[in-house]
């Protein structure tokens, strides 16, 4: 394999003592700047855990209660910090339990390196105890994977793993290491990987494409921006803001792009997609130029592609060439890192304000406010709504919290109403929609941003998929705030059953345990509220707490999330009720 290397400090003395593969793995992690990893030990990875014991002053290992939790924690860590998250597991079931997290990281472009133990080289293919073909299993859900069977391969492959995970469009990498490779000794030298000849992570910006894009932007009467996570991954928040402010173009975001620009910025017109804001969805089909930046036209964003922005010219700023023209045809594709391409286009675009066009967004917002938002945030009915809980969290945290959401109604409400002042603040499972994501992801998020408030907002369904990770919060006293919005239902599925399945509520009623008692069992301060008069003070108390805090909010059981673009419908047909 042709790779280019750059020498880094050698982590051990110059006499080049031989070390074991297991110790080499630790040195590789340290050389890549890893100081925390999440995992679960087992037979085939024990030599590495033995080294982790020896290196615990330099490398913190967090024992999650399930390997899936380790991947989501690593993802949460990566998403808030912009660094590579690391998860470790043993062979067989340990490895297969990583698959959901890998798939989640793959579709949401999260840099993660997973290390799995494997049975010894001589036993491969013998159906040995806890042998599984994790390379075969993980291939479709990893950016790259590799099985190491010789200790000497460890430094080169580990260097390549980190390089691939974090460069270009990031993603998860899995390195499977047979037990003999962990035990055998070799002379360790570590060189960071700086290039792989068959891999072109960032296409070079094409000046002609940038000029063509600028021409379209300067002549557009009703242009609209939709940005995605590419802006955050590319650290292009400032460049996007400068571009938006100079051109005066209304800018909307996908769920993964949330928080890249301040929620209260006057040119931020809200979220697109199935449960996004009314204005940006409807006006997608009225704009004359759609400028997509670091987003991939997911079906939850576009609705029916046959009726999506057909009237508009499309400019697509994108790092991944395979995304261009995949779902929506681009008139101009600007390949490259958005930080660089937005910076290049800035001097070419004219100052503008697009006032009339902005008024269209304002009018649509007023319609949405009257029909939906007012009732979500300032409800007059007796029961609590999810929206008012989010609003109180905004107020209590000053829009500064990292909001980690799970999947379902609370996620959509959370992303609709949570306000952000800082980038990398909205951590959610966007592409895969992994229930159970939030609790472990919040643990990782807190560890990746200890100075920030981290609030996990979870439904009663998803919470019970990874509830065991409360053990990590207890053991390590991780001061995350957990809010379970409990409607005793799988709310989003229930909503679809109500709207599209003639109210046949198949398996969506949840008979729930006493969540407060469970949290108490883990010695986590906890409270349950169901009345509006308790909401503000309890959330203030929760945010003020320096410790982990669990809050169960009993909300209306049968509320629905609107606006909604029914699956397969056009963005123009967004329903307000």
């Amino acid at each position: 394999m042709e790779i280019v290397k750059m020498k880094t400090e050698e982590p051990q003395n110059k006499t080049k003592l031989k070390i074991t593969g297991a110790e080499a793995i630790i040195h590789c992690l340290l050389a890549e700047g890893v100081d925390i990893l999440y995992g679960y030990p087992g037979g085939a990875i024990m030599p590495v855990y033995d080294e982790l014991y020896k290196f615990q002053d330099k490398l913190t290992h967090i024992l999650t209660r399930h390997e899936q939790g380790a991947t989501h924690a690593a993802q949460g860590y990566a998403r808030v910090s912009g660094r590579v998250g690391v998860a470790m597991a043993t062979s067989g079931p340990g490895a297969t339990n990583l698959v959901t997290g890998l798939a989640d990281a793959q579709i949401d472009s999260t840099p993660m390196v997973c290390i799995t133990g494997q049975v010894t080289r001589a036993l491969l293919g013998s159906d040995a105890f806890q042998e599984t073909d994790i390379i075969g299993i993980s291939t479709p859900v990893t950016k790259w994977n590799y099985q190491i069977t010789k200790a000497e391969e460890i430094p080169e492959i580990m260097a390549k793993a980190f390089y691939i995970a974090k460069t270009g469009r990031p993603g998860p990498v899995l390195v499977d290491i047979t037990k003999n490779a962990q035990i055998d000794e070799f002379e360790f030298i570590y060189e960071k990987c700086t290039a792989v000849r068959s891999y072109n992570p960032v296409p070079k910006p094409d000046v002609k494409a940038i000029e063509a894009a600028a021409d379209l932007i300067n002549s557009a009467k009703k242009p609209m921006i939709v940005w995605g996570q590419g802006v955050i991954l590319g650290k292009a928040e400032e460049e996007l803001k400068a571009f938006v402010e100079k051109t005066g173009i209304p800018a909307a975001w996908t769920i993964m792009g949330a928080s890249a620009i301040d929620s209260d910025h006057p040119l931020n017109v809200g979220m697109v997609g199935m449960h996004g804001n009314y204005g940006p969805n409807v006006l997608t089909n009225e704009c004359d130029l759609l400028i997509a930046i670091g987003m991939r036209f997911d079906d939850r964003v576009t609705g029916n592609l046959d009726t999506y922005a057909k009237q508009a010219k499309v400019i697509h700023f994108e790092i991944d060439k395979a995304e261009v023209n995949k779902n929506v045809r681009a008139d101009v594709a600007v390949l490259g890192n958005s930080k660089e391409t937005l910076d290049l286009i800035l001097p070419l675009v004219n100052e503008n304000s697009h006032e009339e066009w902005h008024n269209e967004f304002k009018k649509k917002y007023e319609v949405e406010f009257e029909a939906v938002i007012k009732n979500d945030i300032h409800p007059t009915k007796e029961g609590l709504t999810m929206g008012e809980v989010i609003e109180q969290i905004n107020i209590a945290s000053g829009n500064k919290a990292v909001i980690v959401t799970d999947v379902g109604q609370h996620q959509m409400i959370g992303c609709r109403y949570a306000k952000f002042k800082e980038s990398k603040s909205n951590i959610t499972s966007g592409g895969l929609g992994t229930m159970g994501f939030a609790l472990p992801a919040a643990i990782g998020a807190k560890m990746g941003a200890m100075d920030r408030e981290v609030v996990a907002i979870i439904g009663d369904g998803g919470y019970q998929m990874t509830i065991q990770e409360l053990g990590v919060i207890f053991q390590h006293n991780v001061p995350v705030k957990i809010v379970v919005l409990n409607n005793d239902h799988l709310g989003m599925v229930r909503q679809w059953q109500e709207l599209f399945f003639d109210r046949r509520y198949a398996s969506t009623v949840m008979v729930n345990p006493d969540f407060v008692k469970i949290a108490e069992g883990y010695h986590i301060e906890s409270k349950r509220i169901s009345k509006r008069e308790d909401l503000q003070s309890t959330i203030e108390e929760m945010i003020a707490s320096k410790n982990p805090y669990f809050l169960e909010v009993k909300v209306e059981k049968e509320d629905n999330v609107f606006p909604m673009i029914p699956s397969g419908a056009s963005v123009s047909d967004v329903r307000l009720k």
Partner: protein
Amino acid sequence: MKKQWFTISVYSENNVGLLNRISGIFLKRHINIESLNVSKSEIDGVSKFTIVVNTTDKWVRNIVGQIEKQIEVIKAFYHTDEETIYQESALFKIASNLLFDERRIQNIIKENNSQIVTVARDFFVIAKSGRRNEIDDMYEQLKPFGIMQFVRSGRISVSKEEMQITALLKEFYEEV
């Protein structure tokens, strides 16, 4: 959109897991691989996959994009039949007595520009290279006499346009 035949050429590192990764791209999209050939290429240490599919222009672009995205893939191309020179190879195993008893067989071998590879006591083997329809024709001609075994290879092809892998690799080494 109309389906048609495409030949996808993939230049890659010689990596053990890559075939799995590439075939998964087709599997996920329910696109059948009609033929697959892997060999060395004109560049030392670089492998070449030649994959034939019957699909639409939209899907072949999608697939080639996804293939090229794989870390060990250097570059992927797709071409229509008109844009390539392509061939397949076939072997026919036939009972030896027919070679002597049936004059027609010798004519079939000659007319089809094929060669006898080996003659044993019980059987002989004919090799034929050419387009799929030429091999199919020959198969039909030989069938009435009885074919003991038949096998046909995947398509191999070269494009009429240049596939600039050497330049691409040179550029890489100049940059780093």
